[in-house]
């Protein structure tokens, strides 16, 4: 029984997270105070939203390196709309950011689907194009807090039932992605296409279309996160969330989503993001220089992928005994 539970990567990761939190609590009581936990979760909310979008893409054997650039561009569009038309209701800006993200995601998806360009090349290219577009839109200037309306900035910070709205957004996205990945045809198609594209074709799944929808979902979530980011930090410029795409991929990998596609869960992606979020928030508490954060998350990624690879390894049949030594 125990062995079966621990076979799940998510369980292993959950135990690791609990041990980590427990260890910090032992040295520095107060870390697990509800208020602190809510604040850590809130800090991680955007990473969770993006990791869930990235999960859909990676599950279907792709990768979206443009996800942070998409966030930045969509967030900037929302902020610019807010500055230009202060009377527009915030809900409209939220929809606009999500829509812009979906369009940018659809561009990735179409390039992958219709032109069969490898995902890493497409999103590497669109990453720089999307970031460059922010410069074209803003002329390199910052959209600062005092230019944004109060309503624009208030939404993510508003507190509902003791939890900030930003956190509620991420909870809603978690629920949505759980439903999509577990209960819908599209969700199963992600697994099928990522697990074995050729077999997926024979079961009547369009591989290209499935890829397209994965990028569309990742894009829309990045757009939503874009509004949340610019509103929360009350600033929009070319370099927001620069390099964040790697944190997002890291969260997925730590969460046990196989980079080769077809294996992993939404819960894993959330736990992976939380793990990174807890480390980031714990470092100042345990009095370690924040400069350690990058090296630590790098080490965690390597350990996570090594552990996951071990648990996933299938014993192959060795046909030629000698060939085994050659490798």
């Amino acid at each position, binding site marked *: 029984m125990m062995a079966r539970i621990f076979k799940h990567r998510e369980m292993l990761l959950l135990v690791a997270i609990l041990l980590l939190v427990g260890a910090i609590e032992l040295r520095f009581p107060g870390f697990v105070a509800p208020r602190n936990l809510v604040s850590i979760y809130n800090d991680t909310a955007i990473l969770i939203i993006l990791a869930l979008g990235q999960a859909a893409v990676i599950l279907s054997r792709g990768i979206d390196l443009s996800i942070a650039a998409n966030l930045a561009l969509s967030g900037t569009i929302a902020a610019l709309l807010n500055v230009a038309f202060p009377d527009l209701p915030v809900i409209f800006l939220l929809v606009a950011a999500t829509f812009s993200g979906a369009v940018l995601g659809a561009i990735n998806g179409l390039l992958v689907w219709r*032109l069969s*360009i490898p995902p890493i090349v497409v999103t590497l290219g669109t990453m720089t194009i999307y970031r*460059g577009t922010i410069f074209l839109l803003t002329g390199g200037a910052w959209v600062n807090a005092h230019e944004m309306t109060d309503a624009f900035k208030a939404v993510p910070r508003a507190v509902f039932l003791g939890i900030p709205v930003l956190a509620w957004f991420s909870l809603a996205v978690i629920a949505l992605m759980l439903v999509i990945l577990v209960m819908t045809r599209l969700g199963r198609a992600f697994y099928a296409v990522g697990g074995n594209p050729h077999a997926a074709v024979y079961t009547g799944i369009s591989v290209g279309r499935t890829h397209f929808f994965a990028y569309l979902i990742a894009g829309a979530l990045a757009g939503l996160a874009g509004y949340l980011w610019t509103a929360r930090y009350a600033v929009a410029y070319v370099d927001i969330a620069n390099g964040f795409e790697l944190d997002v991929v890291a969260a997925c990998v730590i969460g046990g989503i196989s980079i080769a596609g077809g294996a992993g869960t939404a819960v894993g992606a959330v736990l992976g993001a939380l793990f990174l979020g807890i480390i980031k928030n714990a470092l100042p508490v345990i009095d370690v220089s924040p400069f350690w954060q990058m090296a630590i998350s790098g080490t965690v990624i390597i350990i996570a992928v090594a552990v996951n690879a071990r648990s996933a390894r299938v014993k192959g049949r060795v046909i030629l005994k000698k060939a085994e030594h050659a490798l």
Partner: protein
Amino acid sequence: MSVSETRFVPDRLHGRAYRMARSWESLLIVVVVAIFIINSFASPYFLDAWNLSDATFNFTEKALIAFAMALVIISGEIDLSVASIIALASTAMGYAAQFGAGTPELVVIGLGIGLLCGAFNGFLITGLGLPSIVVTIGTMSLFRGLSYVVLGDKAFTGYPADFAFFGQGYVFWVISFEFVLFAVMAVLFGILLHLTSFGRMVFAIGNNATAARFSGIRVGRVKFLLFLMTGVMSGMAAICLTSRLGSTRPSIAFGWELEIVTMVVLGGINILGGAGSIIGVVLAAFIMGLVTFGFGLMNVPGIVMSIFIGLLLIGVIALPVLYTRIARRFRRDEAL
């Protein structure tokens, strides 16, 4: 493709000249020449020996790594940690320079750290059998993270005076040391990839690793050596860059891994492995360098250049796909 489509079988293959004219490399040459001509018309300062010499610094350091990266990508792997290896090697050199290390020691340290980082990547990928894209995203964070741990928000300066030669020295008139290094490495990697059995093994592995293994190629060992190469070349680039800048910050060469991969893919190396040439990478390096330089002369901001590079990357891959698709449609119409 429909079943009824009849395939025309030629009685002989196209000649060598025809194939060369239609190759990726000749397309790149056309692009290089076009950029050169456009730039010469756009700015009167473009056709100046010293200006052109300065322009080469835009790509020589990245190209050094791109050569090794080309081999890694042809073998079906990728190394995203190269820019972080530069950061770590540069930090180590800066640290040593604080204790009065001379230029020869610094060179050994730079190359040595590159070698160690490459060996670490190689061990994780071939020793433990982990996917290279994830491993090198991890080590990318780890290597640069270590240099943040050492440096924080500070910087190392105070390199010995003769260390400046690697990044700022000229061998002959306007020909910089970096450019000579670039040319020598281009030739060496060209020979290694195209004229040695090692190069054939790299292609074989990229096309079908399992078949390569059954034909007696030590797949793991070859890949390990390739990651050692990207490591050492990153160390070499670190020496040049550190020497040129004269200082080390942990953010040194940030984001270069993506530019280097762009250079390699633009050079016609198949991102899925198995095909490509060093001459293509050399041409791609020139294209990226000349575009950056030309836009710079016209006061176009760097970020706009990156849009252009992004479009170029997608365009050069998308256009041939579109072209063959349209050409096929035409041919089908003729057949009817």
